[in-house]
């Protein structure tokens, strides 16, 4: 036997020790330590989201306002890119070469195996060109995506737009993932949950390069995408477009409501923008421009702008005074070119006595100031403060001072001061008196309302005392509308009182302050107003409903810097009413239409020979 034979045992010993170490190591890896099992699941399962198509939006007559158009994203898998002519590709898709090269570099940094979007939303005409040439660009391919399309380009503020979800929102809403689109404003935002549908999720096993290798758990956990619900808007597309046309070159808003339902027929905020400007590639250019425009085209004046209501508030005063038995229809006040008490002077332009209906028709400031003073000071309240509280509660029941829309969360509340407000700022512990707050009687001072609230107020007048919360969506395909929208709200003023002031409102249009709004064949009830503007010319306002019996439309029009109600707001309101009720403007009033369409209040200081920017 060889003298080194026992070394065999040492060699075998080393082998056995290593074997034992390996067994222990495997025991630890496979049985003791569970972290590797968790890592394994994370490694291989990937969610693939199937995006449902977003719900469509129709107008009240079934015309399509918003639908989805297929656009194409250009994707590339960097490692599959072969030789290609960058210049040709860039010219086809109309993208600067530097941008393209930059995006391609970014994609490479992300992954050379995974496809990345290089250029988003290639328009259909470019797509048609590109599709024929795709064979020249190996490694690139096109992916379809839906984008919002607007056949009429109107109602941008009502429809709203969609955008990528913000990181802050993502944290609270696990449904969304980074890069998802969500309604940012308007109907798109308010009805997001209906419109979005439900994403389908498929779980796939993927390899290390993210390539799909098969479904996970045989697809047991997968869900199918559910298409978004279609909405029928209450908007009348034709009326909406007409309103937008009338408001061109003017700042302001129009809100038209169907009084019997609270459905908004038209909601115009001017200046506006074409909704398509906020879609796709346009948006990166247009959004900053719109955001920085001093005329605030992104700001929805119709629901977010607050103005003093002006004389349009006078019916409210009359109604409250009637309800509170402060006045009767026969009660009269004298206007002595205004209302004068001691040092207090409030101008008017009459020298006669008025009853309520005449005072409405002629918009007499003196009448309503005296009536409001009498209300505040009435004995039965035991002090002007209590009188004010009574008045304020009535006002609140008309939907003022609070949000009335269930759809627009950018809606402003308006402002009906609480008694404490005056206590702190006006009376300062002194006794309440009527005169310091008497300008409320003519819709000036601290009171603030939105055009939407004024339209709703008009609808209340038309309805003789009730309203449905104004809304822009009539029905949802496959779901119930918010029941609040179908709930009738009564004001604290008896409907009898409303009937009593109809004559005055009719008279406003027939022979009063807004005779320019008269439409032969339609009985319109209305009221002009001038909303005080400390920053410039006053705003022209007008509210009206028609026909007087069985009203079909209630409308509020604001034209900023339009001075008096009868100058622009009343003609525009009457054209809207005529358009809605009669479908067209009768020849005898077409001059008025032309004048309104041509009026430019945005650049009044520019001489005629300078072309107005469009």
């Amino acid at each position, binding site marked *: 036997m060889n003298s080194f034979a026992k070394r065999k045992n040492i060699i075998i010993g080393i082998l056995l020790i290593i074997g034992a170490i390996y067994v222990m190591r495997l025991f630890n890896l496979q049985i003791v330590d569970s972290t590797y099992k968790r890592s394994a699941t994370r490694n291989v399962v990937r969610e693939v989201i199937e995006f449902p198509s977003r719900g469509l939006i129709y107008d009240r007559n079934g015309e399509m306002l918003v639908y989805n158009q297929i656009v194409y994203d250009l994707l590339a898998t960097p490692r599959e890119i072969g030789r290609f002519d960058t210049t040709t590709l860039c010219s086809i898709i109309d993208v600067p070469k530097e941008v393209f090269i930059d995006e391609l570099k970014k994609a490479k940094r992300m992954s050379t195996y995974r496809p990345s979007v290089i250029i988003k939303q290639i328009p259909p005409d470019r797509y048609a060109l590109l599709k024929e040439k795709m064979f020249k660009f190996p490694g690139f391919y096109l992916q379809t995506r839906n984008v919002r399309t607007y056949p009429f380009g109107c109602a941008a503020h009502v429809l709203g737009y969609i955008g990528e979800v913000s990181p802050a929102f993502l944290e609270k809403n696990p449904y969304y993932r980074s890069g998802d689109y969500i309604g940012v404003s308007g109907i798109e935002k308010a009805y997001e949950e209906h419109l979005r549908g439900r994403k389908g999720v498929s779980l796939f096993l993927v390899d290390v390069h993210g390539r799909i*290798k098969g479904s996970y758990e045989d697809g047991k956990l997968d869900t199918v995408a559910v298409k978004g619900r279609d909405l029928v808007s209450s908007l009348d597309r034709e009326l909406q477009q007409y309103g937008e046309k009338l408001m061109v070159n003017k700042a302001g808003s129009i809100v038209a409501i169907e009084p019997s339902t609270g459905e908004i027929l038209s909601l115009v905020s001017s200046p506006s923008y074409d909704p398509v400007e906020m879609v796709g590639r346009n948006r990166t250019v247009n959004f900053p421009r719109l955001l920085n425009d001093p005329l605030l085209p992104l700001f929805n004046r119709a629901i977010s702008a607050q103005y003093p209501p002006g004389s349009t508030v006078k019916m409210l005063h009359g109604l409250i005074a009637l309800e509170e038995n402060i006045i009767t229809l026969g009660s009269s006040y004298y206007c002595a070119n205004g209302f004068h008490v001691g040092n207090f002077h409030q101008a008017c332009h009459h020298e006669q006595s008025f009853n309520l209906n005449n005072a409405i028709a002629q918009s007499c400031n003196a009448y309503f100031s005296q009536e409001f003073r009498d209300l505040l000071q009435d004995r039965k309240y035991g002090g002007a403060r209590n009188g004010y509280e009574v008045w304020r509660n009535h006002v609140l029941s008309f939907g003022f001072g609070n949000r009335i829309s269930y759809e627009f969360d950018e809606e402003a509340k308006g402002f009906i001061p609480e008694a404490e407000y005056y206590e702190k700022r006006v009376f300062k512990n002194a006794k309440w008196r009527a005169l310091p707050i008497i300008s409320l009687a003519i819709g000036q001072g601290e009171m603030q309302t939105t055009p939407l609230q004024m339209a709703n107020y008009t609808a209340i007048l038309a309805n003789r005392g009730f309203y449905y919360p104004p809304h822009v969506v009539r029905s949802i395909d496959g779901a119930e509308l918010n029941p609040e929208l179908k709930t009738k709200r009564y004001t604290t003023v008896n409907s009898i009182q409303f009937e009593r002031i109809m004559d005055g409102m009719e008279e406003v249009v027939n022979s009063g302050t807004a005779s320019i709004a008269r439409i032969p064949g339609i009985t319109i009830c209305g009221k002009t107003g001038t909303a005080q503007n400390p920053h410039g010319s006053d705003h022209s306002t007008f509210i009206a409903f028609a026909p007087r019996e069985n009203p079909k439309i209630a409308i509020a029009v604001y034209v900023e810097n339009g001075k008096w109600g009868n100058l622009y707001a009343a003609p525009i309101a009457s054209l809207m009413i005529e358009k809605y009720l009669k479908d067209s403007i009768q020849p005898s009033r077409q001059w008025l239409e032309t004048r309104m369409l041509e009026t430019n209040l945005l650049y009044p200081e520019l001489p005629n020979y300078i072309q107005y920017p469009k």
Partner: protein
Amino acid sequence: MAQRFEIWKRLDWIIILLYVFLVIAGWLNIYSAVYSEEHRSIFDMEQRYGKQMLWIIFAFVLGLLILVTESNFFVAFSFPLYIFLLFLLIVVLFFGNKVNGAKAWLTIGEFALQPSEFAKFGTSLALAKVMSSYDFSFKNRNSKILLIALLVIPVLLIVLQHDTGSALVYVAFLIPFYREGMSGLILFFLFFTALLFILSLLLAPWLFVVLLILSAFAVFILLRKKWNELLTPLIVLVSSVALVSIIFLVFGLAYNFYFVLLISSFISGVILLFFSIYKRIPQATLIVSIFILSLLFSFTVDFAFENILQPHQQDRINNLLGIESDPLGAGYNVNQSKIAIGSGGLFGKGFLKGTQTKFDFVPEQSTDFIFCTVGEEWGFVGSIVIIVAFIYLIIRIINLAERQRSIFSRVFGYCVASIIFFHFVINIGMTIGIAPVIGIPLPFFSYGGSSLWFFTLLLFTFLRLDASRFEQLR
């Protein structure tokens, strides 16, 4: 004719059974690693398992051919074969194909051969031939020079091909050298280094340093048996720990126990080294030297482990992953491999049910990382079966080698056992994260014709020699 018949009777069927088992198990795991729903046919020549099936059939034919060869042939032709394979290594340098950064492949028509694999066969034969000669002895300087030359020439040629993994396998030949009388110190040193390497990876760094200090003291006591001599190193160590701590605190450095321990141990080591030389205590000098080297080794080992891959090896993996810059780190594949094996659990996910290995999370999983598939799909139990099978095979070969009458067969047997041993330890060790990532295949198991044929050649040559164990082969 009668002699031919004898061969079948004297053949070690246990090894053949183990061989067949490992080859089949390897094929099943390759099939599973490459398997996908689209490719179901097991003979699909486009797929690796289809090709491997072909390589296996060829391997069986090769094994059969070796068994019917005269055993004297291998003895007689050991040098010619060695030289022929060296020649192939030179040829591949000029005409070889570059695969994954290594210019190690010789393509002949459809077949690609890796001469570096077969060179180990030639080297084994040549070593056996030299060491079985009458005048061979490890005490003989000429013998030693001849041995080193036999090893260094192929190693250099293989390194020139940038195939470091295959070159490292030559370390395995130290085992037959040891068995034939080489000083045990060399093997001990190697084993000690490997142990340090594994421990420094497995243990927390500070714990490793503490263990190192304790073992240095223990060895010192074992050798000197004088407890009072422990006082000096203890004082030096404690005072340097105190000193370094104070420096850390004074300079407002973030106090890190590991660094303080490492630095003070190193300082004490250097002081004690000079002290022991001055006092002429050679045992102490040796222990302190080893201690210092171990410290340095453990400090660099993590770094070395992460960076053991040469640039071209890193590129290879990066290309595979499609990563230009490597955000996942060089330890990526080891980590993926551990995840795959760790996710297997006790019984595994079942044949073809693995997710990690199937979906290319583990690079090279049908070649170098095939053991991941075993770990994932067959679990702890399956892994143990494979490990036990390899260990049993190696021990069996060693035992057979020991029963040889001729030294040639014994040395060759040890070479075979050692090469399989080395491949097994490194390959499985790297998949479970305790051995460096050296791209060498698991014998009989990994995908690839060259590797399978080489191991078949090696094993069956030994079986053929063993069948003639009663003859004196020279």
